[in-house]
């Protein structure tokens, strides 16, 4: 990022290649709309380009980019809440995963508390360390641990109950 700040476009292209799919995946797992997810992922990179003058290497770039993505996500959710379409859209399953598994996981995750779910997803899908999650969410690291622990426990229970229902049917 510092090289890009110094004027190297090649440095940014490398960053983009490395993060384009993870950032798209970040939005895609959290939003129902694939097109909107792509727009927000693109906007995240545009924000990084435009804000490169003000960038300071105070933390890892990974923390920086996910912080921006998270703010974009919250902004999008606020807009969706205002528009009243947050829960109205049908759930779309991914093409690249087993539809039933994806749907189970998505359903179970959607029943978790917002804070718990975010910590768990940042850990499992974005593979951020505890420290990085704490930086991105601006919470103490012990809070990350406790939320993660609770989220895993709750998710396990939810998945087991869904599995039991599936067997019964």
């Amino acid at each position, binding site marked *: 990022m510092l090289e890009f700040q*110094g*004027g190297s476009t090649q440095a940014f292209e490398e960053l*983009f290649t490395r993060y384009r*799919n993870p950032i*798209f995946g970040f939005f895609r797992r959290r939003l129902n709309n694939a097109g909107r997810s792509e727009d927000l*992922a693109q906007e995240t990179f545009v924000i990084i380009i435009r804000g490169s*003058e003000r960038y300071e290497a105070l933390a890892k770039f990974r923390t920086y980019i996910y912080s921006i993505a998270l703010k974009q996500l919250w902004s999008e959710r606020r807009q969706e809440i205002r528009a009243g379409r947050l829960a109205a859209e049908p759930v779309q399953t991914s093409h690249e995963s087993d539809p039933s598994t994806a749907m189970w*996981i998505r359903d179970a995750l959607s029943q978790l508390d917002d804070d718990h779910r975010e910590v768990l997803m940042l850990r499992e899908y974005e593979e951020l360390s505890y420290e990085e999650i704490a930086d991105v969410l601006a919470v103490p690291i012990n809070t990350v641990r406790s939320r993660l622990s609770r989220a895993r426990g709750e998710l396990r229970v939810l998945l087991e109950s869904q599995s039991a229902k599936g067997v019964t049917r």
Partner: protein
Amino acid sequence: MSRQEHPTWEDELMPYLDGQLGAAEAARIAGHLETCDDCAGSIADSKRLSRQMSGWKVEGSSEKMKEGVLAELRSRSANTQPQTRWSWWTKRRVWAVGLSGAFAGVVIIVLASTREKTDLSLPVESALTISQPSVVPSAPMQQGREQEELFRLEKQSAVTVAEAQRPSPDLLPGPLIMRSARMNIIAKDFEGARSKLESIVLQSQGYLDQLTVKGEAGSGRVLSATLRLPSDRVDAGLSELRKLGKVREESQNSSDVTSQYVDLGARLTNARNTESRFQTILKERTGKLSDVVDVEREISRIREEIERMEAQQKEMKNQVQFASVQIEMTEEYHAQLLPSVPSSATSLWNASVDGYHTAEESLLGLALLILRFGPTLILWSALLLPTGLVLRRIQRAKTFRP
């Protein structure tokens, strides 16, 4: 670690599962897991959960997104310079520059206060002789002492705001006095007095601001004028004006405007400095369009203020340099014997015409009166006359009854 001393889930086992422990801690937990089925089971459950979660995969991003981002990147590269301009502006250097600025400010204040003490410690005359040569220019010498003093004042006020606002009258060349006079004169020779008045103005190197002459039959002419005479020659000018005729009324007025002038100069300097700073910001800093518009609006406002203050300063300077003298000169009136106008024959003819018109008007008036009230009179007569006749007959019948 014995089998009974289980590691805590949140602080040890879960971080071990997520690879968040150091090598030594991880080895210790791994050793415990080999002997503890409960903890190994918890770890296995969590691993299973992670595997389940990883079953939710998403597709990759499209080329459209890539094109959008790279287009923005190209646009930025084309429109902006490399970041060398701002790259040096790191947090540490901000501090370094800030501290250097503060240090320089302290040094300037210390030096300024030392210099001020030195100046004030001198006698008044010495202070004046030191300060005057440094600020008195050679150009205004020919325009008299007042102009020199004004110019010096202007220069002094332009040095710094703080110096201009400093209450040290000793450093001023003298008070700035705005003078005005008013004179009411009765002149026997009006034309002669008028030409003499104009020559007084010329000799004094002043000018006529305004002049009006009015005259009506049966009374003398009146001249109203506003003269602007140089302040150092106003006394001589007034003496000459008194000779124009009999002075009926005279008044003089003066006001000290030194503090207003200095204050105005200081505010003007301040405004010019502010304008200069804004101009620098506009040239050197980039920002949002709304910020640029705000700065330009502010510059426009300050420029307007500067021009207004410059006009005030110019007007004040003019009023100090040139005293205002208002003159009202009345001609001493002599009545003159003139032939009667019009002639007697014309007067007789005019009288007969007037008589005819009067008779015509009276006849017309009578006709109008009859037309206006006649019908009413006829109506009432028609109503009252028979009644009166009947009453009269009754009265007669009573009188002649045997």
